[in-house]
């Protein structure tokens, strides 16, 4: 049963199993274990980013294609829901239609980009996606009539997903069973489903071909696989899942703007999460996203305390200033590409 659910890709390491279980339990019971708006928000963000990073792993880790347009697809999904909910406020139809529209646009766009750049050389893809996604970002802020420009869009979700809705009157373990709780479980279950779906894809024969292409494109082609077609499908798939992750984020946040969906900063975050967590394994994405977001939300406070404790020393306080945490992550990122290309998950699996 478990084997079928995980598509035969078990964690294969005691440490990894424990960590994954902890993440699963933590996320599944987040509203009860960590009550409070901020921690629930963190948990939902972790859920969405696990999906987003896992879908990126399909490209970078499994196929060996570097894309810088992943946030673009994420943003398309988010804006799809946002625009539809702006048209039909607080409707389930808006959510459904928006997600589907975002999905369709993302896959179509991914297909066109893949066709143009993968046809020639796979490394074109990195450059072309960087160019396209930055143009898209400017476009989104220019078309303010549709997207709300720099301010973004705020909209209402269906009443059942808001704090005003009460499912049952009694409290469970001291937590009100309201729409916000429902909303969280919608995000959580959808994310879990998408992650399992991705696991299914990468462990199917299709995923094996992708890995073969990553290891040796020439040989994969010689065996008889049309590498361009496989790569294109991988690009479209990962764009589609990213778009759905964007829709989930839009439903959770009730706000969509360029900074929360499209910016290059998020793209770099995704890259860091995946490489530090471990490329080439969906569990790496789970680990990376969880650690990164927890660190961003809580470690920065620690750095702040450290920086003020060091007080008047020269340079040192500036080095551990919370705003400079990306510096350390960047260094960690470079080191992990050199020394642990399979990230934390790879280390855990090797050292069992």
């Amino acid at each position, binding site marked *: 049963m478990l084997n079928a659910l995980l598509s035969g890709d078990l964690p294969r390491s005691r440490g990894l199993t424990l960590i994954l279980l902890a993440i699963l339990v933590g996320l599944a019971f987040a509203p009860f274990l960590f009550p409070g708006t901020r921690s629930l928000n963190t948990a939902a963000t972790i859920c969405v980013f696990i999906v987003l990073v896992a879908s990126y792993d399909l490209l970078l880790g499994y196929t060996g294609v570097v894309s810088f347009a992943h946030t673009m697809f994420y943003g398309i999904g988010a804006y799809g829901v946002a625009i539809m909910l702006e048209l039909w406020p607080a409707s389930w139809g808006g959510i459904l239609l928006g997600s589907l529209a975002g999905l369709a646009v993302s896959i179509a766009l991914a297909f066109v980009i893949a066709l143009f750049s993968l046809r020639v050389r796979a490394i074109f893809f990195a450059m072309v996606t960087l160019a*396209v996604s930055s143009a898209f970002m400017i476009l989104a802020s220019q078309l303010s009539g549709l997207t709300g420009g720099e301010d973004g869009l705020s909209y209402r979700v269906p009443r059942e997903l808001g704090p005003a809705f009460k499912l049952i009157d009694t409290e469970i373990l001291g937590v009100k069973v309201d729409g916000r709780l429902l909303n969280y479980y919608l995000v959580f279950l959808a994310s879990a489903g998408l992650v399992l779906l991705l696991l299914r894809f990468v462990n199917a024969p299709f995923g094996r071909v992708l890995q073969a292409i990553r290891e040796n494109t020439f040989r994969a082609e010689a065996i008889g696989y049309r590498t361009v077609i496989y790569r294109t499908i991988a690009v479209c798939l990962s764009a589609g899942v990213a778009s759905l992750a964007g829709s989930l984020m839009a439903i959770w946040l009730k706000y969509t703007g360029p900074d929360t969906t499209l910016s290059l900063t998020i793209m770099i975050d995704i890259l860091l999460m995946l490489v530090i967590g471990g490329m080439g394994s969906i569990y790496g994405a789970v680990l990376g996203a969880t650690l990164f977001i927890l660190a961003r939300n809580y470690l920065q406070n620690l750095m702040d305390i450290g920086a003020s404790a060091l007080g008047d020393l020269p340079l040192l306080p500036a080095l551990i200033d919370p705003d400079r945490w990306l*510096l350390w992550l960047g260094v960690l990122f470079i080191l992990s590409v050199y020394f642990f290309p399979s990230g934390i998950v790879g280390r855990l699996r090797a050292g069992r």
Partner: protein
Amino acid sequence: MTDQTASQTETAAPRAPLSERFGKWVPYLLVPVFLILGYLLIGSGPTWATLTLAGLAMGMMIFVMASGLTLVFGLMDILNFGHGAFISIGAFVGATVLLSAGGWTGADSVLLNLGAVLPAMLAAMMVAGGLGYVFERVIVRPVYGAHLKQILVTMGGLIVAEELIRLIWGPDAIPLPRPEAFTGAWIFGMVAIEKYRVYSVILGLIIFLALLWVLGRTRTGLLIRAGVENGEMVEALGYRIRLIFILVFVAGSALAGLGGVMWGLYEQIITAQMGLDVLVLVFIVVIIGGLGSVHGCFIGALLVGLLANYTGYLMPKLALGSNILLMVAVLMWRPQGLLPINKQ
């Protein structure tokens, strides 16, 4: 049978080189075609002249930044995302020198202004070049031959470099006023010609010609070109191709630093992430030109600069996507770029 094929090849022979020769020149003709089309569409001489100059200036600046990247790719097969870091660092070092020159930049004397700008450019080139050396040794060298790791590692280098800039110079954008002699415009009748743009075009042209001279007329250039076509053979002939690698990498980084100063003076404001922003344009230019080709890079840069300014005037809404559209069109026509190099 043999006679027949022989006669066929004979009749076909004169035709093929003609189309080949013509085909080779088509990319070069694109720039004049763009100029004429722009004139026809804009319809007003003075506006056209202003826009053309702006486009050429922008193109030249992008060329200065892109030439290093394309050579590094051609010679070493390295796609260096860290190139953006050299642009930013160059701009910040240049700005520091310029701002510390104090009165010299504000003085109404060309000599004093040059006395501030030239050291700024030299300092930017030296620091960016030195950083390039470190970058090559520490970050790029361990990952030769692995594209995926190269992209990741150089991107990591770019992130770290950006953060270091924020650490040293602070997180805010720094305004960078142009020196007196570079502000304002000459006015010929209806045409206003901005001085700084003229200077950028001249400097860009000098660098382009110097690059052509080095590549085409010197022994080092010969080795570089040979290395681009077939590095192993150059090594087998007894040349240490590693030294050529490093030389090109450092020179390319220095040019990126110089481009950063030029761009900073053009925009009159510098930020830590400007390198990544400009890098997008640089990539488009390099793809359009054909990875590794200096000529192609030059043409691509001019096309991108001209198109950005023409469409910015004609159809402001389209201006954002114009470069992408140009890239798509070029890739549809020539999937390897305008002037691809033949790798062995």
